[in-house]
């Protein structure tokens, strides 16, 4: 069995799923994400990412959220 790999939401491939492992951003960013329901342990699927460092769209439960590129790179995901 191979170790589960970690990557950032920005680097993750479209269509892959995983669990939020931790976030490397500041307190304000963590608060805003938490309010939207994105927190440690949440299982998410990456729906898309836009070119030219555009936002990443993810889905969890019945919720879809678009996250700016730089912020997406501060969210670390443990891939399935």
């Amino acid at each position, binding site marked *: 069995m191979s170790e589960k790999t970690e990557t950032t939401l920005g680097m993750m491939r*479209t269509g892959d799923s995983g669990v939020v492992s931790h976030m490397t951003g500041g307190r*304000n960013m963590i*608060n*805003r*994400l*938490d*309010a*939207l*329901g994105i*927190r440690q342990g949440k299982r998410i699927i990456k*729906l*898309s*990412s*836009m*070119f*030219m*460092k*555009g*936002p990443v*769209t993810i889905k969890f*439960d*019945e*919720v*879809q*959220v*678009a*996250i*700016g*590129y*730089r*912020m997406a790179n501060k969210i670390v995901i443990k891939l399935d």
Partner: protein
Amino acid sequence: MKILLMGNPNVGKSVIFSRLTGIQVIASNYPGTTINYTQGFMTIGQEKAEIIDVPGTYTLEPTSEVEQIALNMLNTGDVVINVIDATKLERNLYLTLQLLERNIPVIIALNMWDDTKHRGINIDVEKLKTYLGVPIVPTVALTGQGIKELAESIPKAVSADFPVSTRDSRWTSIGNIIDHVQAITHRHHTWLERLGDASVKPISGGVIALVVLAISFIVIRFIGEGLIRYVFDPVFQNLWMPVLMRISDFIGGGLLHDIIIGRIIGGDISFLESFGLLSSGLYVPFAMVLPYIVSFYLVLGLLEDTGYLPRLAVLMDSVMHRFGLHGYAIIPALLGFGCNVPAVMATRILESKKEQFIAATLISIAIPCAALQAMIMGMVGSHGFQYVIIVYGTLLVVWIILGVILKYMVKGYSPELLIEIPPYRLPPWRTVLQKLRIRSYGFLVEAIPIILGAIIVVNILYSLHVFDAIANITAPVVTGILGLPKDAVTALVVGFLRKDVALGLMAPLALSSKQLVIGSVFLAMSFPCIATFVVLLRQLGFVNMLKSFVIMISAALITGGLLNIIL
């Protein structure tokens, strides 16, 4: 009694508000439609209760200006109706738990109840009641289902008095509740969901955006021109003209004739050029502008209610970052094509002061409102559609250049995009038509008094030769830089009142195509109309308004001057 409607953004608070109070408010399918509170009244038993539609918030620990407003309102209320999107129970319960920790009676509306069935979500309402200890009513605000029961249950609202908790323990409790009350069965993706996914992917999303915008433009023009050509113009020419002729003969001549009927041009009354109360004063708002207001707001309402706009924001995000904004700024910008007033107010959905300043300034400068656009279509368009394209093209280039400059000049930070994307919905006709009615009516009651007032004042000032004096003073700028006849200053001054009348005033000047293009661009860019000026002042404060004003005037003069040289 003061009842607060609170909940996450885009859960249907405004629709419930409208159902409970009978007051028609604007509701759309994107987070942040309500940025200021709306109040209304309903009767409960014998008592008259005040209801407040509070802007949406995810948490009572505010992370934005709008959430701070929501929190401040909570401290003034007697009862909270917590509106929950039943399809996103887990996330919505976070705010609910925070509300239940407050010492205030709460009742829950489990809205979008019909959607849970389509999505294979099964919620045990009775069990949820025992966990939360407050009344819960499933509702479908759009159809009105459950609203009566909700209203009747308001007196049963109770304070749950949950102990004040921490974030982690709230999420733990929510996890526990969800495990026991909600079951999800697997289901296949609907075509709307597939379309939703496709519209946020780079290539398919770009194609969809182009198709949507092209269709929108074609439909707006088709309906607008259709209404003018087959309804309003014939009514004015065939029915109203004979009446006007009789009144004109009756009055004879003089200043009174100029004010009421307007000047006789080549032996005839001209609806556009005569500039009297009963000629241009009615023809401009009803036959030139209203058709485009109706067609624009119909299409905008459909776009708002399908849930497409947040997806457009995702697509435009990297482009908007070049201007110190993020993708969500596309929503105020689109609203600006209708009227700059709600557009400037909507800049409040942007988080930082920097973004708000840039967005408000760019909108005032480079986004012509529907009234001005209708006049551009009518007057510039009659010289050839290529001139209309030059006007829009110039404004687009101005937006881009000025946006890049402002990004580096304005201090402050530009936050990242972080938005929830609502599911696509088939637009409910009720809310689409309701919005169309509110907005069209709003145009008429706000525009007509100003248009008629402007006509009276301009006619009196003409007869006193006031404009001749002004024209001579401003001639170096108006003629020297912009290449317009010196009399055009009247139109530019009136532009501060209303842009549609202002462009109308250029009609009798027999301008060349080039001059019309410059006049239109200058009117769009220079000072905002008085209504926009007031909201800009309120939104930005005096100092920033002044800065914005200087930017507007300099940009308008530079652009007008350049056009005069290039064209």
